[in-house]
Each structure stands twice: as C-alpha cells, then as structure tokens.
C-alpha cells in the first residue's frame, strides 16, 4: 500500500516538475526565438505585430540596412571581444589570486581585508560612476579600452565566490608537499591551484563575460570614437535613429550581439551542467 502510494506521488511530482520546467524553458527561450524571427521580418511587419513565430523574408534587406549604417559587426565583435576577454581574464585570474591569499595564508590584515572586500561589494555602481567618469576624463583615458578592462581586477563578488569554493576544496597538504618539492608560491598558485579551481572559474567566467559584453553605459560615455565602438553601442546607434527605427535590422543586430556570448556560454556550460561544489561545510 505504502509503496503504491509512493509511486503515485512520484508520478504526480514528476508531472508537476516537468510541466513547471517546460513552462520556464518556454519563458527562457522565448526572447531568442523572437529575436531570430524578427530579424527576418520587415520593420512594417514588426510594427504591426511585434511577436510572431513565422519567419519573414527580409533577412537580406535587414542585413543590408545594417551594413549601410556603418554597422561593422566584425569590428564590433573584435572590440567587444578584446574588452570582454580582457576583463573576464582579469576578473577570474586576479579574484582567484586574491581568494588564494585569503584562504592559504595567515596574515595580519587578512580579516580586515576580507571585511573591506565585503564592503566594496556593497558600494552602489552609481556612486563610483560619477567619480570614475571624471577621473578617466582627467587622465585622458577616453577612447581607450583599459578603463573597461582593468577595474575587473578588483571584483569583490568573484573573490567572495572563489573564497567560498576554495575553503573546502583546496587541501593544504598539497601545498605543503609542493613546497617540499621546492616549488615557489607563485608556481604553486599557477600550476596547482588554478587547475583545481577550474569549475568555479568557469562559472564566474560566464557571469563576468556576459556582464562585460552587455555593458553599455560606460562604453557609451568613454568610447566616443566610432571606430572603437563595441557591439552594444552599434546596436544602440540603430535604435537611436531620430526619424525611424529599422526594427528588423535592430533585431538582427541584437541577435548578432548575442551569438558570441551564446557560443562562449555553450562552451563553458558543461560546468553549469556538472555543477560547481561550493560551500563552507567540510565533509
């Protein structure tokens, strides 16, 4: 009796769970479908019915409009890629390094330093933006990718995440034996610690890459030279036409913007599927 009951409830659970997940799947994929479909439709079609699942035949026309507006996706890709890869690398590498300093070594200022990191995490972005922006103009770092890359070195949220991951998963014994073998601390970090941190780094890399790729506010203010525009800036140019918005090509542009992140995401997604073990509880 009890067994039958359990089976029935398992069935009920499965139906509910799968229905719910399916619903969320539709909700999550919906914008991608709309983007792809709309990039094949004409502006008129989109204006009268913004949402449709039937592709149109305007892909080529939209592409031409896109090209005609000085939209150079390859240059855009390149610029966005330099910024995103640079800042993601800085973010992940230096955050792991900072987390390593926090976990592996005992030093006097460790505790206060961690507190500072947590406090930095809470500073609203808008607070620093005014000062940051004035500062960059003063040192003439406009039209330069560095102010969009280097701040990623100090990414408190990533440090926090890395620290959480490192505490249970980095056995100090390995460090000790490496030291006995005569390895320097820097080599230990690069050759032993980094490979062990790969899953956590991949997860954070996804988060960081996506954020960097999509940012518009700072590039818009700091990069004014059109030859250095990033992908999102180019799309905003399409969207900002004073008289008429070419929706078809805007969607095509948006879709082109999202393709590289999708690729990067799918490459790293195995770490999302497998999951990253994270927690302060040791076995």
């Amino acid at each position, binding site marked *: 009796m009890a067994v039958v009951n359990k089976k029935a409830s*398992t069935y009920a659970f*499965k139906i509910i769970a799968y229905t719910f997940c399916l619903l*969320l*799947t539709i*909700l*999550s*994929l919906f*914008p991608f479908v709309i983007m792809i479909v709309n990039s094949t439709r004409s502006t008129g079609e989109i204006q*009268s019915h*913004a949402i449709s699942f039937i592709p149109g035949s305007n892909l080529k026309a939209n592409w031409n409009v896109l090209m005609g507006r000085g939209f150079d996706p390859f240059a855009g890709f390149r610029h966005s890629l330099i910024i995103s890869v640079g800042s993601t690398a800085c973010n992940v590498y*230096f*955050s792991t*390094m*900072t987390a390593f300093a*926090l976990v*592996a*070594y*005992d*030093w*006097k*200022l460790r*505790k206060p330093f961690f507190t500072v*990191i*947590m406090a930095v*995490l*809470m*500073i*609203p972005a*808008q*607070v*620093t933006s*005014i*000062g940051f922006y004035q500062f960059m103009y003063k040192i003439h770092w406009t039209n330069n990718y560095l102010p969009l890359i280097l*701040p990623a070195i*100090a990414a408190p949220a990533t440090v926090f995440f890395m620290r*959480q*991951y490192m505490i249970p998963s980095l056995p*100090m014994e390995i460090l*000790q034996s490496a030291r006995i073998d005569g390895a320097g*601390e820097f080599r230990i*970090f690069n050759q032993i610690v980094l490979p062990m941190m790969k899953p956590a780094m991949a997860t954070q890399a*996804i988060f960081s890459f*996506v954020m960097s790729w999509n940012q*518009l506010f700072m590039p818009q203010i700091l990069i004014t030279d059109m030859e250095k525009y990033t992908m*999102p800036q180019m799309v905003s140019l399409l*969207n900002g036409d004073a008289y008429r918005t070419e929706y078809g090509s805007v969607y095509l542009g*948006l879709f082109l*913007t*999202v393709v590289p992140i999708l690729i990067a*995401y799918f490459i790293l*997604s195995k770490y*999302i*599927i497998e*999951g*990253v*073990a994270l*927690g*302060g*509880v*040791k076995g």
Partner: protein
Amino acid sequence: MKTKLKGISYSKYGYLFSIPFVVAFLIFTLYPTIYTATLGFTDCRGVMGPDNYKFLDHPFEIFKSVLENDSFRLSLKNTIGIWVMNFFPQITIALLLTAWFTSHSNEIRCKGFFKVVFYMPNIITAATVAILFKALFSYPTGPVNDLLVSTGLRDSSYYFATNKTAARLIVAFIQFWTWYGNTMIVLISGVLGISPDIYEAAEIDGANGVQTFFRITIPNLKTVLLYTLITSLVGGLNMFDIPFLFLNGGPDRATLTTSVYIYNQAFAGSYLYNKAAAASMVMWVIIALCSAVLFFVMRDKDQIKLDKELKKAKKEAKRVAKGGADQWQW
C-alpha cells in the same frame, strides 16, 4: 590551516597576492568613491561643477535636502518594493529548482538541459529585454493586449504603461526572469558542496525528500544563501537598467528606483552632482545596514568559526612579531 613550514613564514605571500586587487581597488573604486563622497558636501553642480566647486558652510545641507526630497523617498520605497516583489519568487523558485535538480530520490531527467536554458535570459542585454517587453505590453495593440481581447478577458486594450501597479509588477517580473537562473546555479553549487555523507545518514534515518531539504540542505547552505542574499540585495537596491530602459522611471515615478534617481540627478538635466553624490552615499549606508543585519541574522555557526580563526590569527601574529625574520612590511 598550517602555513608554516620549517619556520619559514609565508604570510608575506598573502600580501603579495592581494596587491593586484588592492591596487586596482584603490585606483578604480576607492578613489572615485571618495571623490563622489566628498562631492556630497560641496556645491558641485552644473556643467562647470567638477572643475570649480567649494565646500558648503553647512556640510550636511545637501544630505538633508536629499533625505527630505519627495522623489528620493518615493524612489527608495519603489526600489524596496520592486526588489521584494522580485526576490521572493526568485529565491523560492530557485530553491525549488535546486531541490529538484539535486534530489537524490527523485532524479529529474534532462536537468542539464534545464540548467543551461534557465540561465539564458541572463545573457541578453538589458536594452534588448526592455525593447522586447515594451513590444509585448504595447498599447493599444500588442501581443498581450491582443491575447486579452481575443480570449475575452477584457473588452478593450489595457494601457499597462500608465498603470503604476502594472508597471511595477512588470519590472519586478523582468528582474525575476533575468536572475532566477543565475541564483539557481549558485544555489546548486552550494548544495553540491554539502558532504554526501550527511545525506546518506539522513536517508538511513528514513527522512523523506522534503525533510532532507529543510533539515539538511537549507541549514548547510547558509554561507551560500548569505552570498545570494547579499549579492541580490546589493544588485536589487542598485537596480538601474530595466527601470531606466523600460519606462524611464515612469509612469508617474512608479518605477523610479534610487539608481535611476541618482542617474537623473547627475546626468539628465541640471548635472546636480552634489545631490547625486549625497543620494549615493545614503544608498550605500542603507545597503551596508541591510547587509549588516543579514550577516547578524545568519551569523551563529560562522561566528563561532570566525572567532576561532581570529584567535588563531592573533596567536599567529604574536609569533610572527616575535620571530619575524622574514616579515612583510605593510
């Protein structure tokens, strides 16, 4: 956590490895923050403001006017309201999915696929999301309105963008929709970090799925939950992109969040840098207080561990001070 080998102190590497972070932090965060913070005490406003300003005779004048400002108060209320509306469904659903995807007794097939897909809304630029949702809820003809009218739920189109509650709900929904996948991934990471031994023990004791989740998963997830709560709180109270791009704080200031308010003060119009700076600092204090409360509420176990660490660190410090041949001078 021994870091000493044969009497050599490795603590200097702790400092060494933190240098990049500290340097970048000093240049790109601390300096701009202090700069901004001081602006709140000055008469810095207008296009010429940043080149030519002086400190006020009454240093807290601007802070006072910001705190008394009707729009600022409203924006604070909106921000908290929208965050609460988005956060609770978000954490609930993220936890639910986490429980399902990490369940030992009820294996869900294709969970890898679901995990990958659920994160996908987070990939799209806020600008795209705003355009999409604007199109969805457009008036008088839009997909949602078409649906409402054609199914007979409403006689005529509904003007979503003029209704305050509707606008807030839509913004909260967008926030929920973009971030639940992210939260879920972090939470799953936390659950995977819990030792399987504990689950085995629970299974032997005959605990069912629900019991295991509440008795084992949640308590052991504390640090990760804390991380989620803090990052979500900070992100939520700084909510800018969607409210700004979707309806630019409207209708009738219903989706005016504090960040949009700060942005408007600083960049859209009169360049009231000092007011924006003061509002920013007020926000920081609020966020820091909320986080402190969270830390306090979720302290217990961590606190004990921290105390232990502190004691050890003190001992260590003493030892280093005594023998410090290889000390790193800070």
